[in-house]
């Protein structure tokens, strides 16, 4: 317990240090840092469903997009202030996941991945034809003028907002990792049938995991919409966003707390720097790196590191499905 307390303390201290440090950064590295923080949140969102539950969602950008569009519609069409729209959008994205989740989560593996890909594409098409979202022409988030609008806060404020969100996501995943809920997710990942017979309510647990991951992605989407000011179906539902989430978590280490953070720092820095130095070859280099990376290291960087003895549930669950399952059975007193 003392160790956990120390970790929370260290996390809070690091967050405060990063918040103070951001103020000292020039605009370009600040932009890179902001996008790293956005992807820490998005990667943790994917990590919950793809890493802990073992359901590789390829449609995670849908929740990001739904959150972003919800914020844009509420501020532009309904007249909400941004701070009222933010929690509403997060809740809406989670509710959306709770609706689409049950049919999707009946599938597994490849079928689940592609069905979620289709779900995201379908959601984008839906947003593009609805009147309230402005269709393909996009929607502008009001940031000045009369009424209860929230003024555009500037780059540093967005850095802080994304930092706060990243810290919250990290805390959520750290809590999840040690909780009964996280244990149930790991049991599902190790062997769903066995988990079910051990008393885990699999469907409810999976849908809850998807909704929690959508809550994080939706909040990030709402912030992103506000930051971008103008939202389009193609920018909010960009498939590259999903790819980055998947790649970051897989490279960093699935089902771990720190892995996605490391992955996000490495990849987003790489993406931003590549874009600055080789903008023409940019669309080729990242996917080529992915291909080479998967061929050379099919299990990601995290698997190169030895799992420390006693790392227990913080390690790679897939390596010890039996142990995880037995642990679950014991904890559920069966």
């Amino acid at each position, binding site marked *: 317990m003392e160790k956990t307390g120390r970790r929370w303390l260290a996390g809070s201290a690091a967050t405060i240090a990063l918040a103070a440090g951001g103020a000292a950064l020039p605009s370009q590295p600040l932009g890179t840092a902001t996008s790293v923080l956005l992807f820490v949140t998005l990667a943790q969102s994917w990590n919950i469903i793809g890493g802990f539950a073992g359901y*590789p969602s390829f449609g995670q950008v849908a929740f990001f997009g739904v959150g972003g569009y919800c914020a844009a519609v509420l501020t532009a069409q309904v007249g909400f202030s941004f701070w009222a729209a933010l929690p509403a959008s997060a809740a809406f994205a989670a509710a959306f996941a709770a609706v689409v989740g049950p049919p999707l989560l*009946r599938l597994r593996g*490849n079928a689940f991945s592609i069905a979620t890909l*289709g779900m995201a594409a379908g959601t984008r*098409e839906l947003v593009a034809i609805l009147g309230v979202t402005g269709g393909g022409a996009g929607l502008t988030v009001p940031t000045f003028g009369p009424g209860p609008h929230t003024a555009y806060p500037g780059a540093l404020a967005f850095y802080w907002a994304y930092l706060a969100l990243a810290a919250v996501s990290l805390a959520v995943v750290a809590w999840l990792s040690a909780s009964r809920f996280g244990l149930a997710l790991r049991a599902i990942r190790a062997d769903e049938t066995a988990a079910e017979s051990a008393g885990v309510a699999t469907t409810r647990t999976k849908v809850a995991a998807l909704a929690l991951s959508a809550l994080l992605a939706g909040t990030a989407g709402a912030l992103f919409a506000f930051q971008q000011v103008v939202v389009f179906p193609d920018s909010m539902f960009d498939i590259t966003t999903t*790819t980055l989430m998947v790649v970051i978590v*897989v490279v960093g280490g699935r089902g771990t707390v720190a892995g996605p953070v490391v992955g996000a720092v490495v990849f987003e820095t790489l993406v931003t720097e590549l874009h600055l130095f080789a903008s023409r070859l940019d669309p080729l280099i990242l996917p080529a790196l992915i291909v080479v990376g998967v061929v050379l290291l*099919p*299990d990601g960087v995290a698997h190169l590191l030895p799992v420390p003895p006693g790392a227990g549930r913080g390690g790679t669950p897939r*390596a010890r499905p039996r142990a995880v399952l037995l642990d679950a059975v014991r904890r559920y007193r069966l």
Partner: protein
Amino acid sequence: MLFGYALIAGVLFGLFYAFMSTGLNLLFGVLRLVNLAHGDIVVFGAYVAYSLSSMAGLNPLLAIPITIVPALAFGVLLYYGTVPRLNRSQDTEMASLILFFGVSQVLEAVATFAYGNNQASLSPTTFGGPINILGEHVPATWVVCGLLSIPALVVLFVYLYRSRLGMATRAVMASREEAAAAGINTRRVAALAFGIGVAFAAASGALTIFMLGGVNPSTGSELVLTAFTVVVIGSLGNPIGTVVGGLLYGLVFTFTKTYSPSWADIVPYLLMLVVLLVRPTGILGRRVRSA
């Protein structure tokens, strides 16, 4: 009459969609992996047809015989270059999805460098004016492309159901372990199936440029979804299911396009979700849903 028009167009589009999707299903059936680069390979075939017609002034359909052999070779090389590595992963499925996503993005980037982001299209009157079928005037390109899909599908079925190699392929589809135990070189069969799947994708590209009215580098990611929807509707790993799925998809697509154009792009995804909800194994499916 709108109904008759939608029906004829739906069948023609359905045949085309079956042809375009069948390579994805073959790969899935044999290797249990989803080739996310499928759509980009189709787009490459389409660009070959485009170049032949607009630059060399040749018949764009020549792209079909021209692309088959290089695409087959590319598929076999891609198989040997990646799949044995993937099989060493702890989670082959995940690694393969990411890998083929990467391949898809690489192909898309290459297509962008070569052809730019603009839509490449060929004249809709390449094969003459509208053809009268049962009183409906249907564009000649749709008729030609729809009908050309039939022999392509027949070739696949002859391979699968009438040849020794096809029998070995189906044996691997049914059970890789038992096929290997029966003395089948599963790796060679899988490599060939991979090549054939890629070749079918590339060959269907020449038709895609007419059926979709043109292609651009990002068409590939839409096509792989379409193909997967078709395959899932029919049921994963079942070749006949793909024809059923293609026809159903084609009909649903043309009917929504005729009666409610703005919904035409979303209805196919709804159809997929409904099929998955009602029958997770697809219409002709017998397999378990964990694919």
